[in-house]
Every structure is written in C-alpha cells, then in structure tokens.
C-alpha cells in the first residue's frame, strides 16, 4: 500500500504522460522531417544554380573553358565542390581530394565524404552533388553540407531531449503527487482503523479545500455522525426498555404470584388473569410503539411516500376524535386551508396527529371551557400543522424533556399512557424533514406547531 506505483492516481498520471509523450513525439517528428526537407531543398537549389552557371561556362568556352573554370576554383575558400573527370573516368582537376563512401541515389544525387586539411587539422566533410556529363568530360558539382547535417542533428537531439524531459517530469511529478495523495489516504486509513478499534468519536481529517478527497472525508464524517446518533438512540431504547418495561412486568408477575398464594376461588383467578391480559396488552402496545419509532428513526423502514391531501387527513381525524372530545365536553374544531398537499407517509402522519389530539384530550382539558383546535395552512416554503389547547400547557423547563422516550410529567403520571406519544410525533416530523415546536398559547395552553418544508 505504501508503494505509490500501485496507486490508481499514479497509474493515471503515467498513462497520461505516455499519451502526452506520444502525441508530442509525433508533432516533433513532423516538425523535424518538414524542416529537414526544407533545409535539403535549399541546399540542393544552390547546387542546381551552380550547375546552370557551369553550363553557361561550357557554352562559352567549351571543354577548355570548363577546365580553366574548375582550375580557378582550387584553393578558393568555398563551400562549392568541383571535380572534373575525362571520358575514361580519370581525374583532371578539382578543389577537393578523392571522395569516399560515394553513394548515388535513385534521383541522380550523389552523396559522399572526403577528408581535407584545414589549418593543419584533418577534418571530415560531407558532400552532396550532381554529376554533369559533357561531350568528353564529366563534372561533379556539389556543396559541403556539414552545416545542414549539423542543423538536422541538433534539431533531432533537442526534440529527443525535450521528449525525455516530458516523460521524466510526468513520471517524477506523478510520483510526487501520488505520494502526497497517498499520505492523505493513509491518514484516512489510519483514522478509520482507530475508529474501528472503538474510538468512535474520532473523525477523518479534512482540509479547507473542496477536492474529492476532502468531500469523501466530509461525507464519511457525516455518515459516522449519523451512525453515532443511531447508536445513541439504540442505546437509549435498550436502556428505556430495560428500565420502563420492568415495572409493568413486575406488576404482572406479582399479581399472578399473589393470586396463587391466597387460595383463590375461580372468580379471583379470572380477575387476576384479566388484569394480566390487560397489562400484557399495554406492554404489547408499548413495544409496538418503540418498534415503530425505532424504524422511523433508523430510516431503514420502507415507509412509502406519496402526496397526501392534508385537508382530508385532518377532517378524518377530527371525525374520529370528535365524539370522544364531546364526551369530555371538549370543543374540537379544525382550521384547515383547502388544497394542501405534502409528500409523506399517510399512516405515520395520521398517527402522529392522532397522538397530539389524544395528548390534548387527556392532558389539555383542565379549563372550564376546554377547546382543541387542529389546523393546517400553507406558507411560502413550508406547511404549518398545529394542535392547540387551552389547558395548563407545559413549563418551559419541561419542554425539551417531553420529546424524549418514556418521559411522563408528574402531572400526568396518574393517567394511562406510555410516554411514547410525543416521541413518535417527533420521529414522524423528522421523517418528513420538518421541525416541531412547543409554544405557549395565550392566555394558557399548549400549541404544538409542526412545520414541514415543501419539497
């Protein structure tokens, strides 16, 4: 893992460098060949010009004139080359010694080398020319092309070096970049191992930048936070279950045990068993509530979402609860705007509002003329849903507490209930990405306000 050559990033850079080098190589090669050809054409043109001049010399002075012309060129510092031969291929005159490595190309051009002493140093020269035939003579006309060859060579080598430089910089740069990248990855790995080893509060290192690695770290951190809160709520559930379900279980057990002890008649048996069944039913209800809250909160449940007509939902609930409110002399009314739709889970939302209504009916009806209002209206970016009563309300110090599981305020302890109602409401609101507020009503009472953003 510590070898950067194994890294995907390095491999990417390597392939990129390779592609770049190949295309750059093609460009250089093209440049090289076109310039080499231009240089050659220019040199050849000079030779052709010379041949024309020689032709004119021949026309004017015939073989004698030609001979004198060549003799005149000897020992003159020039890049032009002349060697004159007779019909038997015998050397007559010329300004360079016998050429070697003579090569005649298909197009009639002759290439050769020769050695000559210049300033007492023997040097090798490269020549190029044409053999021009006359009646009894033949003349090699050419030029020294050392400069051109040097130019081509220099061009070739500088192209080659720049290509090598590109490859080297690409690979070396890639190595450095990858090592940098690797360091960050190994930091992430180290932290992950730490977290796996139980150090659950640790988080991955992030920097200020917005690159992919940083995004990855932030996302993983967010995931860890989410898992952390899930774990916490799981732990809470387990603690609560252990604590709050023991009490009713204990009641059932003692009830049955005591009944057995006291030599009961059949009626007493029946009574005890009835009580036990009632207690277990309540336990089952509590269990079901805990389960559905956990499922909603974990987000793992496949609760479907579809558009819900809030007006219908609220009117149906009012319809369900109106008789029981009336039986308790509570005036239950609704204030709903028409045509409010939200994307949500029908059953969950109904249950949440039902819980709020039941809370209001059970705990919010202490005034002389109790009333409960269930309302909904559409705002610009959200939908407000509220249940308000004119009961005693909830003290500010208790407001945060009541949303937790199994919390029952002292004033309600004597009444039946599991302490899970508001907790489920809270989970349902979270499921719909909304917020829940407990407000004071004037002059007294509680307003539970739910705001759900319009998607």
């Amino acid at each position, binding site marked *: 893992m510590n070898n950067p050559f194994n890294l995907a990033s390095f491999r990417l850079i390597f392939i990129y460098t390779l592609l770049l080098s190949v295309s750059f190589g093609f460009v250089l090669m093209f440049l090289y060949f076109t310039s080499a050809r231009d240089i050659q054409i220019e040199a050849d043109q000079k030779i052709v010009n010379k041949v024309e001049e020689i032709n004119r010399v021949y026309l004017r002075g015939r073989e004698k004139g030609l001979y004198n012309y060549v003799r005149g060129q000897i020992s003159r510092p020039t890049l032009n080359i002349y060697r004159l031969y007779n019909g038997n291929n015998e050397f007559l005159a010329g300004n360079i010694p016998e050429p070697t490595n003579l090569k005649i190309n298909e197009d009639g051009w002759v290439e050769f080398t020769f050695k000559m002493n210049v300033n007492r140093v023997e040097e090798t020269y490269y020549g190029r020319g044409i053999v021009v035939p006359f009646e009894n003579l033949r003349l090699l006309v050419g030029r020294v092309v050392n400069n051109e060859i040097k130019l081509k060579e220099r061009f070739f080598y500088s192209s080659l070096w720049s290509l090598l430089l590109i490859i080297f910089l690409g690979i070396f740069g890639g190595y450095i970049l990858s090592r940098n990248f690797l360091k960050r990855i190994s930091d992430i790995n180290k932290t992950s191992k730490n977290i796996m080893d139980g150090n659950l509060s640790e988080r991955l290192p992030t920097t200020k930048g917005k690159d992919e690695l940083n995004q990855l770290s932030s996302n993983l951190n967010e995931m860890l936070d989410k898992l952390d809160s899930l774990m916490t709520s799981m732990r809470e559930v387990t603690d609560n279950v252990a604590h709050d379900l023991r009490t009713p279980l204990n009641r059932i057990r003692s009830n049955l045990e005591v009944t057995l002890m006291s030599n009961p008649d059949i009626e007493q048996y029946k009574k005890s068993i009835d009580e036990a*069944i009632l207690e*277990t039913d309540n336990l089952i209800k509590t269990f*079901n509530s805990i389960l559905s809250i956990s*499922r909603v909160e974990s987000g793992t449940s496949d*609760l479907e979402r579809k558009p819900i007509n809030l007006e219908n939902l609220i009117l*149906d609930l009012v319809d369900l609860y109106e*008789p029981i409110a009336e039986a308790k002399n509570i005036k239950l009314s609704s204030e709903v705007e028409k045509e409010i739709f939200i994307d949500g889970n029908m*059953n969950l939302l109904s249950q949440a509002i039902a819980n709020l209504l039941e809370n209001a009916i059970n705990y919010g009806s202490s005034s002389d003329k109790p009333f409960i209002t269930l309302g909904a209206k559409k705002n610009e970016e959200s939908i407000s849903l509220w249940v308000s009563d004119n009961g005693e309300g909830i003290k500010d110090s208790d407001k945060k507490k009541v949303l937790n599981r199994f919390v029952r305020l002292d004033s309600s302890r004597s009444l039946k*209930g599991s302490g899970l109602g508001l907790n489920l409401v809270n989970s349902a609101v979270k499921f719909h990405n909304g917020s829940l507020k407990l407000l004071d009503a004037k002059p007294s009472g509680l307003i539970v306000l739910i705001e759900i953003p319009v998607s």
Partner: protein
Amino acid sequence: MHILLIEDDNDAASYLIKGLKESGHVIDRASDGEEGLFMALDSNFDILIVDRMLPKLDGLNLIKKVREDKNDTPIIILSALGEVGERVKGLKHGADDYLAKPFSFSELLARLEALNRRNLPDSSSSLLEVGDLKLNLLSRRVEREGEEIDLQPREFKLLEFLMRRPNQVVTRTMLLEGVWEYHFDPQTNVIDVHISRLRSKIDKPFKGKQMLFTERGAGYALRYNE
C-alpha cells in the same frame, strides 16, 4: 369451521389448537411450509392460518403457490413483522388478512369468522337487513321498526360495516381498519365512543331488543334472533 394451521412453533400451535377447538372449530396442523402446501392442496379447508416464517417453504411463497393452483380458500397470515409495508406485501401475495404477533385470541377468532362469512354468497342487493333494522345503500336511508334514523356519514359507514357482519364479533382494530382505514392503535377508547353514539341512535329510542352488543375483551357485535 375446518381450519388448517401452518405453524412451526409447537407451543404456539398447541395454544392455538386448544383455543380454536374450544371455540368449536376443527383443526389440522402442518409444521412446515411443504407439508402445509401439500395439505392445503390435498383437501378442502374453510380457512388457512399461515405463519409468515416457516421452514422449507416460507409463508408468502406458500400462499403464492396455493393461489397459483386456483385455490381460493381464505388465508390469514400470522406474522411477527407487523409494519404496514409487510402487511401490504402479504396481501399482495394473495392472503386475505394479516395479523401481527402478538395478537389477542379474540382478534383472531373475529377475523376468522369474518373471513369465513365472506366466503358465503353475498347478496349484492343495495338493501341490508338485520332483524328490523334496514339500511339502504342507494338512498342512504336507515330505519328501524319502520321509523327513519338520521345518521352522520361516518355513523352510516360504521353501521354498514356491522350490518354486513350480523351476529359476528367485530374487534376495535377491525373497525378502525375497515371504517377509518387507520393502521395504528389509538391510546384512547375512540371506537367505544363512536359505538355508544351509534347505539344511542339505533337501540335506545326503540322498544325492541338491544341489537348492538359489547363483547367483553373482544369488541362488538350486531345481533338479532329470528
């Protein structure tokens, strides 16, 4: 009723068998999915009670195979998976009802009864009659002893639900699901209040016998004697 119980848990099965026999039913039992499928297809039962999780062949697939065999015996699923989504899945596979564990025995009995009655030829007439109580689905008129009774829409629906199941126990959950289409347990006795309202309209003003009874520990029943 002749009932086939497909349940792998021996203890649970023996309680159920005892309770169902006590209630006057005839029970056969299969302890895994394959045996259950074989028995279900081999002889004629009035109702199948199928546990959702079974060895060899799970409950949902068993039901699918029973239905593929063009067998339309009413089926009720018993399952520890109680969410609405699971329930919908069960019904989609061809079950007629779904009961989440733990359930009360009276709830099971009431639902079995309802399923069995549903299998009887149902008159598609628009007039429901139970004793001297008449309910007209088209004119939405209700009368008893020839006297018209004024009902709210929801009371009408509630009465219709009860009148379609005369002399049957109907549980609070069945009412909540059937009349209000809610799948949660209210913590208050909302249904009881609705029933007592209905009772004050169809029973109290009339000299005749009481019809709407409370069945202790189970639910309600609309009864009449010929």
